[in-house]
């Protein structure tokens, strides 16, 4: 599977440097290494979800408990989380650091991913969720740190879109 282990490790290390102690996740191809890294790390609480929207509640609970968290999801998982984002994270000013694998864009071979790719950014903009791309090695660490900082200071969801250029090796 040509998902980049090196770059997944880079992202994971960047999360650790931000003192992320809980990660909620639903598996998808690009996230397999990240989830395994979290699972193998005794310092990390990994919460494997049935549906991504649960992660909004779990992260809110972690925030109340004083623990920094991150959500790992595919963009379709972001679509499935929108009510939770609006009627919990936005309504109650909950910081969410969302790492979203950006499927269905240029280079996508799986037909079933393509519609989600079309609407991800328009929806992030409509929801006024600040977002940046993780698309190059040299900016990963800085952008993860910046996203986490903004989520905490603004008390709102912030998204990082994990791109094919970073996640896929072929």
């Amino acid at each position, binding site marked *: 599977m040509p998902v980049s282990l090196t770059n997944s490790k880079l992202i994971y290390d960047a999360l650790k440097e931000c003192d992320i102690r809980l990660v909620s996740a639903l598996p998808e191809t690009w996230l397999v290494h990240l989830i395994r890294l979290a699972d193998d790390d005794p310092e990390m609480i990994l919460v494997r979800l049935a549906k991504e929207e649960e992660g909004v*509640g779990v992260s809110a609970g972690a925030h109340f*408990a004083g*623990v920094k968290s991150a959500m790992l999801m595919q963009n379709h998982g972001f679509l499935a989380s929108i009510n939770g984002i609006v009627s919990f994270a936005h309504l109650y000013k909950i910081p969410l650091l969302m790492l979203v694998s950006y499927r269905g864009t240029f280079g996508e071979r799986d037909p079933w991913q393509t519609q989600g790719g079309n609407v991800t950014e328009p929806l992030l903009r409509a929801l006024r969720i600040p977002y940046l791309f993780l698309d190059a090695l040299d900016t990963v660490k800085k952008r993860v740190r910046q996203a986490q900082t903004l989520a905490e200071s603004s008390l709102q969801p912030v998204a990082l879109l994990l791109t094919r250029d970073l996640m896929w090796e072929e």
Partner: protein
Amino acid sequence: MLRLDCLRSVYAELEDCLVVTIMGAVAAELHSLGHRPNFFYLQHAMGLASSTGLGVALCLPEQTVIVFDGDGSLLMNLGSLSTMARYRPKKLVHVVFDNECLLSVGGFPTATSTGTDLEGIARAAGIPRVVKVRSVEDFKIAVANARHGGELTTIIAKVEAQGPAGYVTDLSLLENRFQFRRHIQSLKKQ
């Protein structure tokens, strides 16, 4: 059995717990008994109260966390039962008030009114201890057992479809949220 009587029967015991409720009658009735800084009322995002309780419980395993859920909310997030069962925090108590309807929007019947069995679903999802109660006495005992049993417990409490006159309280959502978090942080400093 009235939900208000159930809440009243355990109100004193809630003092040293972290409490998360769903919106509507549950929030309004608990609030009417007297708000405390360790109560968080999730006034929207139906289904996520149990997920929120799970998040708190996983991060603070020494704290007793009680979630007051409802049939309508739980039916919107049945997957939460499987996620809770997977991690089964020992001090998480999941109470589901089942009045077989969506009371606060006019009493529309939920699927528990036509035979869906939340007790069976919770058990089959893997929740280690599941109890169904129909009297206030049994409710009180079930909560006490769950608190001290050392096992994730879901309590299905069958209650009347009867609620308060209104649902809006004088506590702002954000005030509640910041107070709840500050309360938890103050516990950690003790």
